[in-house]
């Protein structure tokens, strides 16, 4: 049986750790299991970290323990103190050359939040670096789907079930551990979102939902 490798990537701060934790939970899936016990781990300790820098060495990796593997990296990422764009395309090509099936998932988070998070944590906005690089992945021959940060927090298990079907990849969406690091009513976006007292369209909506006779129609 071919091994299947799911490469999850996203801009820095888009939820790489969250989705790595969710996708590596299933017993049939290998890769970054340490995230089940730790809330956050530096990205250069991820299972495939060194191969994002030297994908030509992927043949050294022992895939025998699992039929499904999760690989995750952000764009850009910091490896051993050096910020760089990971060689995802080369990694995917090499995995395919080794006889594995490859599928890529690009994580998306609200771009306003993503930029603010990057500016605060990384002291620069790297979203463009990511989207420009992802264009190469989108245009490549590899299977690719988008994965939505907000949809997970809104639809939770249902969204994971949908992703499992879409990606044809085992996701343990029934496992209660998926909510282990997430408080029911507080997600990673909540601290960025503020109440808006009034928006210019509101009055149109209120008027529009009145009966026609009240609107002179």
């Amino acid at each position, binding site marked *: 049986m071919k091994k299947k490798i799911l490469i999850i990537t996203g801009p820095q701060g888009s939820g790489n750790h969250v989705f790595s934790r969710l996708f590596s939970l299933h017993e049939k899936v290998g890769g970054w299991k340490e995230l089940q016990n730790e809330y956050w781990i530096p990205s250069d300790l991820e299972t495939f970290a060194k191969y994002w820098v030297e994908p030509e060495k992927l043949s050294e990796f022992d895939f025998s323990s699992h039929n499904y593997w999760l690989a995750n990296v952000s764009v850009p990422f910091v490896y051993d103190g050096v910020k760089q764009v990971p060689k995802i395309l080369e990694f995917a090509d090499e995995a395919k050359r080794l006889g594995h099936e490859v599928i890529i998932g690009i994580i998306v988070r609200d771009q306003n939040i993503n930029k603010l998070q990057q500016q605060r944590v*990384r002291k620069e906005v790297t979203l463009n670096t990511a989207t420009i690089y992802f264009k190469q992945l989108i245009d490549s021959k590899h299977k690719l789907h988008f994965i939505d940060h907000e949809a997970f927090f*809104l639809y939770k298990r249902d969204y994971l079930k949908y992703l499992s079907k879409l990606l044809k990849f085992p996701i343990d969406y029934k496992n209660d551990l998926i909510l282990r690091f997430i408080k029911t009513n507080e997600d990673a*976006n909540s601290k960025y979102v503020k109440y808006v007292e009034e928006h210019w369209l509101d009055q149109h909506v209120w008027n529009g939902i009145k009966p026609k006779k009240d609107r002179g129609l």
Partner: protein
Amino acid sequence: MKSQMLILFGPQGAGNHLWSKIFSLHKDVYGWKSLLENYWEPHRFKEPFAKYWRDPKQLQDFNWDLSFYYFTSISFPLGIVGSDVNPIYNPNLLNFVNEVQKCNVNVEFAVIGRDQNILNYQQTRIRTQSTMPLFYEQYNTLPKTPTFLSYELLYLYKSEYLKSLKFNIPIAYDDNRVNEILSDDPNKKYIHNVERYDLDEGNKTGKIFNSKP
């Protein structure tokens, strides 16, 4: 060959109008075309299937020769909690679907999502309270797995995202109007900067966190 209908639905304020514009762009799709001429219109008076959501049995009288591809959208619920003028009303998804299928039309579903914090604030501001329980009342009756659509993804990847979607109706992802429709991100007004967050130290120092700080 059966005609095709895409039913798009979501919570109030999740982008029903926005997605309706996008899916109505294609010339072969019978959808909410008048919304392409106006920024906003009331759903219950202007959406082409609005009266059928109220009374699905009337679908038997609908002229299905107008197109091969049909698109309709609905939010669950409609209306405003406590309003006499526009009382809350939750259309019945399953009844509508059953009547469409009786007309020999194949149905697919798309469910839209948006940041749940923004949804909560938007519903509270316009609808006086969160209407998510009423949304889930209908969502939970879905007869088959839907495709989940993302508001945030649409604004970031625009045509690239639309091109990746596979539905039973065509999508005009290369239409110039896509960029016009998506020129102003409505999420922006809700987002504010966060000066400091404890987890930031992980990226700065390489420290491992055993639990959420």
